[in-house]
Each structure stands twice: as structure tokens, then as C-alpha cells.
């Protein structure tokens, strides 16, 4: 068991013939992900991976032909909103957007539109999802994680890899790892994923990796305190970040005194979450 993606995932790759799209399509297929189609407008009728994956001109055509149930988006930032609208209008219930740098006003429109339709978006500006041993949707390196009972949710990319790697070194496996992304307006937040982990029978413990900016960690702390039965360990990046500066991620900024690491750590600890001092320490808190 797992959340969001598993071996029944029938994946579409939007932007499949681009450099990044094609590289990660190869990686995903090697991992065992069932990629049933790709979309690149203007390249419908071609095939990639030596005839393994058909390319369509539009998501609608791909969905009709292949029964997609999840899509992963690798298109450039300026086309990302359109790609998400297209996937939503084609009725795909789970959209994972890897693209970094999507304008925030685009994202507000996308998020409001998707909410109307009840469609789940993960990302953008995220590494995607990995259910070790089953499927990989996105760019998380498959070999750094093993199957297990720890759910991982994170706003970050490589920091997550760091944690998965530390887990693996301790022979601790993951049920599903969800990268929710570093943008201020995104599709899925901590509470959404925590709730799924809480209800996933295969997940027994949870690691939550936050960072400065916004108040999602504080809200997650409230959820954990009031609703969660499973133990949660956490790490918050950006304790040394100066206020008013965007720390790489569009969403990683302390503004108006809000979004500091100290506030988040305080809220989490008050909710009974064990907060690590550095990322390699996190898995040890759950042992």
C-alpha cells in the first residue's frame, strides 16, 4: 500500500520529447513506472524509448487512447499553466507538476480552477512522488530509497534525497515519498499528505520536511496534535536564512515576521513532533 501513486498508476508524461522529459521518462521506465503515453504538441504520431511510448498532440487524445490516470508535467514554466488546465479538462484526477518557475498568478488561477473540479495537483516546483518498489512519478532518484513503512513529505528536492538516503543507510524504508514543492501557491500541502498517511495502513511513521515561508508547517502541527495517531519526525530548513530574501524556492521567504523556522519548530514541538537538528538525524528520531 501507499498513497497517490502505486503499481496501478498509468502515467502520462506532458513534455515527453523535451530534454528533461525524455531523460526522466527513461529513468521512470527503468524504475518500473508504467508510462502509457506522452504529449508534445506537434509531435503526435511519434514514439519514444524505441517505440515503447506513443506521443500524442494533446492530452485528450492521449487519455482517450490509453486510459491515463496520472500525469507528470515537464514542460517549460511559461507553458505549465496551460498544461495543467489541459490535464484537468481531460479529466485526469492526479496531476504532478515538476516544472520550476511557474508565475504565481498563473498558479492562483490553476489552483482555484482545479479546486472547482476536485482534481489533485502535486507541485509545481517539486521532485514528484516515489513509492519505492512500485512506481516513481517525477525525478526522485529511485536507488536512494527502499520500500518500508515511513511516509515522507517534503517541500524540498535534494534535501529529501538526503533524508531518504540517510533512511536507507539505516535500512529504514519509505511507503511513499511526496515532494509537495517549494512554491508559495501549490496544489497539495502538508495537511493533505499527512491525512493520507494517517489513513494509509502501510504507513506507520511519518517524516515531514519543511522550510521557512508561509504557515503550512504551523497548520500541519495543529493537524498532527488534533488528528494524527502516527508518530511524526520533522526538520525545518532555513534557520539561518535572513528575512525578506527568497531562499531559492519562490515560497521560502520570511515576510512580515511570518514564516520563520523558529516559529515552525516551536509549533511542531508543541504538537509532539520530534524535530531534528540536521537532516541525517531525522530517521534516528523514529527508530
Amino acid at each position, binding site marked *: 500500500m501507499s498513497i497517490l501513486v502505486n503499481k496501478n498508476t498509468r502515467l502520462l508524461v506532458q513534455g515527453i520529447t523535451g530534454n*528533461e522529459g525524455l531523460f526522466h521518462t527513461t529513468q521512470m521506465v527503468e524504475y518500473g513506472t508504467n508510462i502509457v503515453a506522452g504529449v508534445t504538441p506537434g509531435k503526435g504520431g511519434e514514439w519514444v524509448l524505441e517505440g515503447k511510448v506513443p506521443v500524442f498532440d494533446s492530452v485528450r487524445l492521449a487519455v482517450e487512447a490509453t486510459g491515463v490516470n496520472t500525469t507528470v508535467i515537464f514542460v517549460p514554466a511559461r507553458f505549465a499553466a496551460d498544461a495543467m488546465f489541459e490535464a484537468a479538462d481531460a479529466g485526469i484526477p492526479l496531476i504532478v507538476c515538476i516544472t520550476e518557475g511557474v508565475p504565481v498568478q*498563473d498558479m492562483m488561477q490553476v489552483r482555484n480552477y482545479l479546486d472547482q473540479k476536485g482534481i489533485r495537483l502535486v507541485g509545481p516546483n517539486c521532485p514528484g512522488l516515489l513509492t519505492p518498489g512500485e512506481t516513481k512519478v517525477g525525478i526522485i532518484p529511485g536507488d536512494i530509497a527502499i520500500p518500508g513503512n515511513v511516509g515522507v513529505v517534503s*517541500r524540498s528536492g*535534494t534535501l529529501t534525497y538526503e533524508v531518504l*538516503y540517510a533512511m536507507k543507510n539505516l535500512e529504514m524504508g519509505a511507503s511513499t515519498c511526496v515532494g509537495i514543492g517549494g512554491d508559495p501557491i501549490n496544489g497539495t500541502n502538508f495537511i493533505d499528505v499527512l491525512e493520507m498517511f494517517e489513513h494509509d495502513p502501510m504507513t506507520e511513521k511519518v517524516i515531514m520536511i519543511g522550510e521557512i515561508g508561509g504557515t503550512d508547517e504551523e*497548520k500541519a502541527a495543529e493537524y498532527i496534535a488534533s488528528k494524527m495517531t502516527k508518530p511524526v519526525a520533522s526538520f525545518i530548513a532555513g*534557520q539561518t536564512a535572513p528575512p525578506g530574501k527568497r531562499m531559492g524556492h519562490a515560497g521560502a521567504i520570511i515576510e512580515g515576521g511570518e514564516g520563520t523556522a523558529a516559529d515552525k519548530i516551536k509549533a511542531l514541538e508543541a504538537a509532539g513532533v520530534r524535530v531534528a537538528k540536521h537532516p541525517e538525524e531525522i530517521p534516528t528520531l523514529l527508530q
Partner: protein
Amino acid sequence: MKLHEYQSKQIFSRYGIPIPKGRVAATASEARQIADELGGRVVVKSQVLVGGRGKAGGIKVAKNSIEAEQLATQILAMDIKGLPVRKVLIDEAAAIDQEIYLGITNDRAAKKPVMIASASGGVDIEEVAATTPEKIIREHIDPLLGLRDYQSRDIAAFIDLPRDYWRDFGRIARGLWEAYTSSDATLAEINPLVITKDKRLLALDGKMVIDDNALFRHPDLAEMRDSDEEARSETEARKYGLSFIKLDGNIGCMVNGAGLAMTSMDVIKLFGGEPANFLDIGGGAGADKVAAAMRIILADPNVKAVLYNIFGGITRCDEVARGILAAMEEVKPQVPMVVRLVGTNAEEGRALLADANMITAETLADAAQKAVAAAQSSAGKGA
């Protein structure tokens, strides 16, 4: 990207928001000339990208053009919070009856734009929010539908704006909304929006922040960037697509991924060091980018040691290693370097760096501790 007051007000004006007559000057004599054109009584306003210009003495009223020239001379010689004043805005002075705050920003939690207003304008809205939150109205705007007229009226009613001004206020609110959306702003604020003694609404001061990610569709706005206002290293970093922020410590950091870069800083601090910068080389960075990053880090004379923390995923460790070697050829660093490579092609990367004079580490904690120790010993030598 922050815009200057004069730039923001120019944009506002395009969307029908009334602003004072005025122009920007780079010299005191220009300032005098503009003041003459405006009839003498003007405000001389330093154009720097920080708040608190007024308190710092960067905004002064001149009774005539001679005084305007004198004040411009003074203000153009100032540094405000470390930023030298290079331009002043000369605005017609207005007789003010009341000051209002009106702004639009993104509400992360609500996933919607929010229009914020307060009858107490002219001061920092965050201060008002902290001390008298009941004086602030926050009106969320549907991003698919835009600001509705009734919302402007709700705001006008909340801030007790006399009804004679409602129609003009509605136009200004709509103009601000259009300026915000058309410019892909993350903040557009008029502070203060004043009622003048001759019964007009006027945007006396303005501020806009543009979403960097949306600049591709606003080449005109991208050109407004004032590189004078940021550290040279940050300008340089942007050229190479690197995410870089200068800090005050002495351990340079080069990391792939923003979260891991912040974390590397945090762990340096945890073990008693001080990071000299935030630097994310991004995913899949090649040798060129790595070399540029290294030059930027080492250009800071404070740097006493450098930590490389690379977790290979999309980024391949051997590529990064090659970048480090190339940059070392060129820059010939005099400070100790600690390198940690994990993940994709880490073995190859480590092999490439074996002959370079570098300290290697297995874990991030180990790497940070070694960097802290190296910086201390290197700083000791330098002293």
C-alpha cells in the same frame, strides 16, 4: 523584483490612478529644474529599494526650487540602510487631509490575491496589522473573476471613506488590480493614498514587487531592474541562472537544491560556523555554471573556507567535480575547500577530485564540521 517608487507610480498612472506631477532626477541641478517646472513647492524623495526612507531623512519638502536643489544635493549624498541614493523623485507637494493604505498582495494560505486597506495610511501596514488589526480590511479576490466593484465599495465603507469619494476610489482600486495582474506583481501598494485639501484622491507613494518568474512575459518591466541596488555578486549570479544571496559569515557554500542549500547553512551554524552565502546551483548544473558559482563565492574577501555539498540526482557529481577543477584552474583559490559528493556518479566525481587539494567528507554533518574547522584555522593564518 522590487520597483522604485517612481517606476511603480508610472505603472499606476497607466491604469488611471492619479499620481502627483513629478519626475526623477539624478543630479541636484536636474532636481532644481524639475522643481521650477512644478512651480517650486515640491517633495524631494530618495529612490532606494528599502523602507523607512522618511525616518532616515531621505524624504524632504522644499519650499522652492533653490531649496529643492539643496535638499537633492544632501539626499543624493546619502546612504540609506547601506544603499547609496542615486536618484531622487521630485514630486509636486500636496496638501493632505487624510492618509489611507491600499494594497494588493498574494495570500498564500487562501491561494488568492487579497486587497488590503486601512484608514491609517502612511505607516507600515505590518505595523498597523500588529498593533491595531481591527483597522485593516482584507478582501480576497477571485483570481478567475477579478476584483468586483462591490468589493471596492465594501472597502470604502470599511475605512469610512466619505461617500463623495467612493466612485473615484472604485476606479483607483480597479486600476490597482489591473496594474497588479497586468504586471504579474506579487505586491502593488499605494501608501499613502491621500485625500488632498482640495478634495482629490492621490497616490502619493507607491511600491510594486514583480514576480521574477513572470518577467519572461514583461520585457519592459525586466528592463526596469536597478542592478545598482543589489550586491554585484547577486547580479552576476543571476546572469548564470544561479540562486545566490550574500551573507555575513566566512564559509562559502555551494549546494544543489534550495532546501539543501539552506540546510547546509543551518548545519554550518549548528557546528559553530557562519555561512558567507546561500547558493543553489540548481538541478543538472554543468561545469560552466559550477565554475561561475565558485568565482562568485571566492570574490568575497570574507570567505575563509568553502563547503561543496552535492547530492547527485539530476545533477551528476562528475560534472560538478569537473566544474570545480576548471574553476580552480582559473581562480586559484587560497582557502581550504571541503567537498561532499553523494548520489549519481559520486564515485567518478570523487576520483576526479582525488588529486586536487581538497578535504572530503561522507556526511553533511562531517562536512560542516570540517568546513568550520578549516575556516577557523584559515582565518587564524590570515590574521
